[in-house]
């Protein structure tokens, strides 16, 4: 094709597309990876005898961040689609409670269970796992159905579901945590290691993260998700069934929350109905720090995964340095503000 003469004022497109290298280097995921590396080196230098950089400590970091990585991955799809899920903490609790109830019901006689010796451990744990994931998925379906039916924002719906979900968990347990779960689930899963050093929950988090990254960048699912977050109307007119897409997104988030609930009881052998209040906000913070726009339309799974390690690094590092771990919350808040500031500037620039 020879170059045609373009009339003055004609619609032309310049080629201002940055190179692939430039795109990687300026990506939020890359910048946040540098921040994480700097934090690790900083604590490495500051910690006594450099214990922060020991293999054992890296194992702790991986184990401690696995749950937040998983939640952040699910949240990335939702935020990318312009939705939110504030109820994931309640979902984690409810899923873990249902799983723990199933495990204690199937596992053995009340005496055996009190002693922590389950005659039926393998079946009980497997059923408990299924119960956790099914509960999580159902929780997600209810979220999506309410958003679709009531035509209310997911912010409001999941705020209500956060309250309702943890309320149900309290009712089911009578406010008493289900404890003395079978040690097999800790030894074989919750605190187990691959090759003797990589925690299984961290392996699961990374595998699910990579699958999510693939779905986000290479499959229709991802671009439809971002299209929805960019312009609901344009997505609808392009023939995307946004209600069904919304159900899928909340089902993924719910299933992940159920899995996290199961990982939680596998690590600690007890439910934690008083905990997980900060899970939703921690996940949203990681998602935004990782480069996903809080307003939808742009998302980075890898960024979310890397950013989700930050709280664990801060807590762990501050504890090693004998500084109160509560500073972690302050530092995470500051990083979040910086990330939101960067997001705003990008949005202003691209206008």
């Amino acid at each position, binding site marked *: 094709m020879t170059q045609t003469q373009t009339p003055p004022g004609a619609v032309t*497109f310049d*080629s201002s597309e940055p190179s692939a290298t430039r795109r990687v280097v300026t990506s939020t995921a890359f910048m946040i990876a540098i921040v994480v590396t700097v934090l690790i080196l900083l604590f490495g230098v500051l910690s006594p005898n450099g214990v922060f950089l020991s293999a054992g400590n890296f194992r702790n970091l991986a184990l401690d961040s696995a749950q937040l990585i998983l939640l952040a991955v699910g949240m990335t799809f939702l935020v990318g689609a312009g939705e939110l899920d504030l109820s994931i903490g309640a979902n984690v609790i409810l899923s873990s409670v249902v799983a723990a109830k199933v495990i204690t019901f199937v596992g053995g006689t009340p005496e055996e269970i009190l002693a922590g010796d389950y005659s039926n451990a393998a079946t009980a744990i497997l059923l408990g796992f299924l119960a956790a994931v099914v509960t999580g998925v159902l929780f997600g379906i209810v979220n999506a159905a309410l958003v679709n039916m009531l035509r209310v924002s997911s912010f409001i719906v999941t705020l209500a579901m956060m309250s309702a979900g943890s309320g149900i968990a309290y009712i089911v347990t009578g406010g008493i945590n289900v404890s003395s779960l079978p040690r097999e689930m800790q030894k074989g899963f919750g605190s187990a290691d691959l090759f003797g050093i990589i925690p299984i929950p961290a392996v699961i988090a990374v595998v699910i993260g990579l699958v999510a990254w693939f779905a986000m960048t290479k499959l229709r699912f991802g671009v439809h998700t971002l*299209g929805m977050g960019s312009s609901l109307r344009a997505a609808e*007119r392009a023939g*995307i069934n946004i209600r069904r897409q919304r159900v899928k997104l909340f089902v993924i988030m719910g299933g992940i929350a159920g899995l996290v609930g199961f990982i939680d009881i596998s690590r600690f052998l007890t439910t934690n109905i008083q905990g997980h209040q900060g899970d939703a906000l921690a996940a949203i913070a990681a998602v935004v720090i990782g480069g996903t726009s809080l307003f939808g339309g742009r998302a980075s799974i890898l960024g979310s995964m890397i950013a989700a390690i930050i709280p664990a690094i801060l807590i762990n590092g501050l504890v090693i340095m004998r500084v109160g771990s509560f500073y972690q919350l302050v530092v995470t808040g500051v990083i979040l503000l910086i990330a939101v500031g960067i997001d705003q500037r990008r949005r202003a620039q691209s*206008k």
Partner: protein
Amino acid sequence: MAEAPIIELTNIVKSFGPVSVLKGVNLRAYPGKVTALVGDNGAGKSTLIKGLAGVQPYDSGEVRFAGEAVHLHSPREASRLGIEVVYQDLALCDNLDIVQNMFLGREELGFGTFDEGLMEREAAETLRQLSVRTVSSVRQKVSSLSGGQRQTVAIARSVLKKAKVVVLDEPTAALGVAQTEQVLELVGRLAEQGVAVILISHNLADVFAVADYISVLYLGQMVASVKAEDTNRDDIVGYITGSKTYNGVQA
């Protein structure tokens, strides 16, 4: 009439609650011809074409596509027939790039994942056919484009899949002189390729520049459907404002 209409709307009725917006409207569009749809603000033009696009189905009336009665209840059904609409408000996804916008909802897949190369080539080829010069930048985000460029992307999206009918709702309303000319040229080129174009516009100069037929909607009724060469600007203004009635044979 030499050729049969590809779109034939008969007695279309549409109300929003108590408000009756379309009161038995007829409209035809022919392959390779530009049919202009004009009428004052609120006459029902956008409502008429939203039914054709399947986003807001009609209450009653008959829709014939290439002679066959069809029901249009979703955007997918319309686009399967080859009916594409470029809306007044454009509605593109700002955060996505040109290729992603052009293929949104109908991505090309190879082994289940995107065939990025194929999509980029098709997007560039479509833009080139519309005489838009671009090769290396189909990966630009839509948010960085000017009004005219956005309009072009929206039109390119509509013709990407060999559309048979393209409806443009006020495509030049927000454009400057040069870009308006460019879009009108594009409209003419679509018709040359055999597409039936329905053009909604308030600008009668634009209408007379490109239209083969002109249909006038007045308060939800089609008050005139005429060949552009058989009428003039004053008559059309009269039909639009209701100060004149058409007594000829409907074209």
